[in-house]
């Protein structure tokens, strides 16, 4: 069970959240100019490493806002949580 530090609500139980996958994946600046390989990269390819991982969580049963977090994928330790739009 994870304890997630929502930047607005404070530490809350994991069951209040939904997971949003990797954070900081930008929509292509000029979508019409992007080829199939670049689209595949944007739509399907995600980092999947061991160690610190920047990811998104949605506080569905709380403030209903998204936040970002850096969590270690081996230990599950949260190294940081921060608001959308803030730098990692």
């Amino acid at each position, binding site marked *: 069970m994870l304890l997630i530090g929502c930047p607005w609500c404070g530490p809350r139980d994991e069951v209040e959240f939904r997971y949003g996958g990797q954070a900081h994946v930008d929509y292509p600046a000029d979508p019409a100019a992007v080829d*199939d390989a670049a689209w*595949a990269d944007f739509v*399907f*390819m995600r980092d*999947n490493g061991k160690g610190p991982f920047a990811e998104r969580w949605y506080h569905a049963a709380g403030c209903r806002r998204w936040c970002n977090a850096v969590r270690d994928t081996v230990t*599950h330790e949260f190294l940081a949580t921060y608001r959308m739009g803030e730098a990692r």
Partner: protein
Amino acid sequence: MPDHASTHRAATHHDAAHDALPAHPAHLWRNPEPRRTYDVVIVGGGGHGLATAYYLAKNHGITNVAVLERGWLAGGNIARNTAIIRSNYLWDESAAIYEHSLKLWETLSDELDYDILLSQRGVMNLLHTVGDLREASRRVHSNRLNGVDAELLSLDDIARLCPIVNLDQGVRHPVLGAAFQPRGGIAKHDHVAWAYARAADALGVDLIQGCEVTGFDIEDRPDGGAGGAGGRVVAVETSRGRIGAGRVGLIAAGHSSVLAAMAGIRLPIQSHPLQALVSELLGPVHPTVVMSNAVHVYVSQAHKGELVLGAGIDTFNSYAQRGSFHVIEHQMSAAVELFPIFAGAHVIRTWGGIVDVAPDASPIIGRTPVEDLFIDCGWGTGGFKATPASGWVMAATLATGEPHPLARPYALERFTSGALIDEHGAAAVAH
């Protein structure tokens, strides 16, 4: 010395939960030192890697093969699954490969001369909504067109096949019907791994444990080695030294992304914990395998008598081989509603494995951007049932350098072409 031949004769049906388990052979495999070079190096000594090694030797006569395993043989997902076997997938590409697998399962004890305790007790998928009924009807007809045995069951059929299912229509998610694959069932997962390992070893394959791959030696990088993909693999770097390789197969399940990254390859894979649990040993109460997508539980009774239940994946990425308790709690609440008799049982042990999930819940098999480096991953939550076919097609792919016909639809390129094989419905585990 156990009399293996006599234990083997009881191979095909073990429906009584308290049948004695067969004794194991005294010798399983050697522990050789790695040679300097092999024709084929397989990274990953789990079920799929061992099956690949066996079929390389058996079907293709390629025996100068090493299987490199970071830990011990068959200690990952082949030791952590719920041992369910079936082939009732929706799409033609899936039915072809999973049905090929089921046919291999049906003769595997004889093929490997080792009783894997295949028990074709049937797999029942419960249906709880009108949408479920329609989707199941579509899938059953699709299965039949593809030569996969499948039928729709009435409530009376369910009560006859599995009397302990709660058919009360007043519960939160009443059972309205079921789809059934009579040839589905379970096998003894450890025996499967040990059987493939022993047979591969006997044919000359080197099974090398405690040997972690730390990098790939790739020649002719288009960017001169700065990091991008391309070039040709000639060796693997390991914790036990450099091992030359004609071809390399990455068959590492949950760790596929980590290994691929060492070769400069990015995969559309996310690694998640998947949990399961067992009860204490009970008398025979559950004669088949029951799965429910809607309320999310899948359960059978193992040969020794314990109830084996699988949960859903934890949604977050992880390599920890453990998941959150609320996932277990959710699964247990569903199990007790579907099987009120289970309320008297106890959870003895829970565990987790790391599954490699692709966006379309289908595997990735075939070439990579690096020449002579092939991949077999993305089996996600359903890899156990695919073990024989995965090994079969990957062996052919490694032997010839060309993807086996059953593997072609599963190329990595499908994520660029858009030809996805969406099996989220048949994969049966919520992701």
